[in-house]
């Protein structure tokens, strides 16, 4: 994607602007000297071993769970979720 996306578009928040309080934190990182630049994500990740993956099965939700999911629909018509008009760019 060559188009430049501003932070308000990336965040889907109108008029979003970087804040001074947060930028102060980022400045500290920019100026920091990590003791070991090569250690990125090598030793301390929390990834799951391939031998320990859960079974790839579909678990049916209970009827109560389905009913609650539908109750949470912001807009509902005949039991279906209603969404806003989708645009294409």
């Amino acid at each position: 994607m060559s188009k430049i996306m501003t932070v308000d578009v990336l965040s889907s928040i109108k008029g979003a602007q970087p804040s001074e309080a947060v930028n102060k934190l980022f400045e500290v990182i920019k100026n920091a000297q990590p003791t070991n630049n090569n250690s990125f994500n090598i030793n301390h990740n929390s990834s799951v071993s391939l031998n320990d993956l859960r079974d790839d099965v579909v678990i049916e939700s209970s009827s109560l769970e389905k009913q609650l999911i539908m109750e949470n629909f912001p807009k509902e018509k005949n039991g279906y979720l209603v969404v806003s008009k989708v645009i294409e760019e």
Partner: protein
Amino acid sequence: MASQIRKIHQQLLDKEISCTGLIQEKLSLLKTNSNNTVNSLLEHVALELAAKVDTKIKNGEAIGLLEGIPFGIKDVFMLQGTTATASSNMLKNYKSAYTATAIQKLLDAGAIPIVKENCDSFGHGSSSENTIFGAVKNAINHNLVGGGSSGGSAVNVAKDYTVFSIGGDTGGSVRQPAGYNRVYGLKPTYGRISRYGLMAYASSTDCVGPIAKSVEDICILLNVMSGKDVKDQTTYASAEINDASLSNHSNIKTVGYFKNFIENEAIDPKIKTDFLTAIEKIKAQGIAIKALDFFNSDILVSTYYTLAMAETASNLSRLDGSNYGNRIDDKNLKESYAITRSENFSEETKRRIIGGNQVLSQGFSDEIYLKSLAIRDAISENFEKDFKEVDIILSPVTPITPPNIGESLKNPHAMYLSDAYTVGFSLGQLPTLTTPQGTETGLQITAAKNNDELVLKFANFLKNTL
């Protein structure tokens, strides 16, 4: 203090109190409380469960240790059929479709949930002021903050409105309010308790944590909630901690503390003096003390917030009013997303989402996000090295005493810096407990990964030493 859970259990067995009476008493205290700790009461379900416990006791049936014990739940956990608002406008009407694993384990053990508790919206804050339900007031002084983000939970335990509460700790959100309200609060080793059903803030440090008034109760709750869960693949199997073993601390020979946490201009002078006095008392018990080098506080805070903001920007991107949430319709889908998120997220939540998207953007990710990941690895390596030399690391919980209500919202950067002593242990994914002793905001006890038992043993030792 002795175990509240065991005390109430015995009172129920001896028929000194009824479970219904106990639940009614707690609900009444919560209803009239002026600390703003309640988002919603679970009156109907709680009284129904209490009646069942009373019937069992009346019929002479055995009851489990947690059966009939009333507890609170930070309002970022799912409990099927009840609202889970995250103290936000976005989810103020959201009903949990399912129940979090940790909470389900407590329900299976017979504990009775009575309240969804006030907190910072989506866990975004250190004072429990970032909430649509009004700022949580400190249990000891109403003018001060309750701490955060699990402020309502810590205050409820401190005031005896709940026997225990379950909070969430991403960068200190259980430990800091526990310290501010002088109760125990544990952040277990990352992965020891399933995160399934805890709203995701920063997934790589999010932990479920119990808040209670004794080490013994923390141990009971940790044992019940721990364990591998297929619904959270970062969980691991852990051995049960025998609470009888907590009195044996003979394997704790050396305690370390970070020099730069103490020799620091930002620390309150009284907290510093009290901490050093505590160290001397431990030394007098024949335990060796070792001063350790560590990363500067500003590096710790900046690394934590950079990663937490990046993760929360991703985790909260699903909240757009499409499938759920307080949708505001506009001319098309994109505009609806934007207006829904702009109007329903608090200023602090928006600040963190925007910061997260900044560091994940092209041009920023290398010099900020990836660098933060590298620093995090260096922090973990530092901990690994330290725990070859010491058994326990002791630190203050906070550099400052609880601020007045209103101060943190005015100065978010100062609020971020107040997390300086808690965030490092989150980045290291280490077990860390706040004990309400030693300084005005308590002490933090940390051990190596998966060594939660040693943390509890040392807390038990401090109980009899300080």
